[in-house]
């Protein structure tokens, strides 16, 4: 079970990222827990500068913009 956090202040790109991760995980039949982190101090704790960012099992794997589908597939 992977824990995936989407960091972002709720802009359209953050929602797109969340939907993409969810869709890819379902396609690949990978069990994940998806969390949205919208509160700024927590986002900044991961040290990212551009959102949306993606954290998997507490490791930052992506920052700045919606990740490409290929990239997301590579995570699972």
């Amino acid at each position, binding site marked *: 079970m992977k824990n995936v956090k989407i960091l972002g202040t709720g802009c359209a790109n953050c929602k797109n990222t969340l939907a993409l991760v969810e869709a890819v995980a379902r396609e690949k039949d990978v069990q994940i827990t998806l969390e949205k982190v919208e509160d700024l*101090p927590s986002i900044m704790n991961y040290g990212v500068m551009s959102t949306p960012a993606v954290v998997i099992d507490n490791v930052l794997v992506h920052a700045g913009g919606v990740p490409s589908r290929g990239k997301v597939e590579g995570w699972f």
Partner: protein
Amino acid sequence: MSTIPIEAPPAKLSHWLIGVALAALAWFAAYSQLASFADWLVQALSLSRQTHFGEAVHFFLYDTPKVLLLLTGIVFVMGIVQTFFAPERTRALLSGKRVGVGNVLAATLGIVTPFCSCSAVPLFIGFLSAGVPLGVTFSFLISAPMVNEIALVLLFGLFGWKVAALYLGMGLLVAIVAGFVIGKLKMEKYLEDWVQKIQAGQLAPQLGETMGWVERFEAGWAHVRDIVGKVWPYILLGIGLGAAIHGYVPEDFLASFMGKDVWWAVPAAVVLGVPMYTNAAGIIPIVEALIGKGASLGTVLAFMMSVIALSAPEMIILRKALKPTLIATFAGVVATGILLVGYVFNAVL
């Protein structure tokens, strides 16, 4: 990780190169035919440019493809340029720079670094935590939305290189001086408490992604789909409004209250611009039409800068990290800068 098949990069790169070359040719061919295309279409609709409606339609049919072509071209190029200037890279370039040099560099990097107002706060704090001074950070934050490639290329396309260069110079000057002044005011204590705490904190881990040219071209194309896909309704709306002004508002009608000699026009334009929020692409067609009807360039540019740089939504976002005093100072300093730009433009042109 290894499940993704990797295509041979050289073959793919050549596809991109040929595609981009062909697209560039088509672009230049289309761009050179804009006026005849609009004339032909107006005739085909059996309208006359002598009528208000015909003239408005002509404006719309000429400006829409022109603006869309310019926008697509520049957004593609900038999408590639931006792959060289990730925020992390810009921050590394800025950290440890002295005030002064740092402000100039920050304002300049603001043109090429990808920026979206929804990322303003993380970027702001990321800069501060890397030791970029507050004033230098503000220079970046003012320049990034205001002096952007879309504004510049549209001004260039619609008004020529002189106006675009003046806008570039003046926009950078406002960003540099405003950031410098905010730095001199020593306002670090007006950051929200949680921001002050984080300042001593950690740096973002570098993701260490290396990019080849195929990825850069792909990023350029993604940028086109993202930006053009997002702003085209604003552009159509802007050109529509512009066309209506162009066709129906009498010549020199605006000179009486948006002209050079009206001293209160510039401040009024700035105040009017704050609650309005659109992007450069939507506002410039309106600017073009206003100027055609006797509004002076300084007044209209002040309006445009105010709409883009001093937006209420961005201030609401920044409020999460800045105390009201600092937001008010930021707005005050930038507004003063824009006012000066408006008066200077009106005086010299």
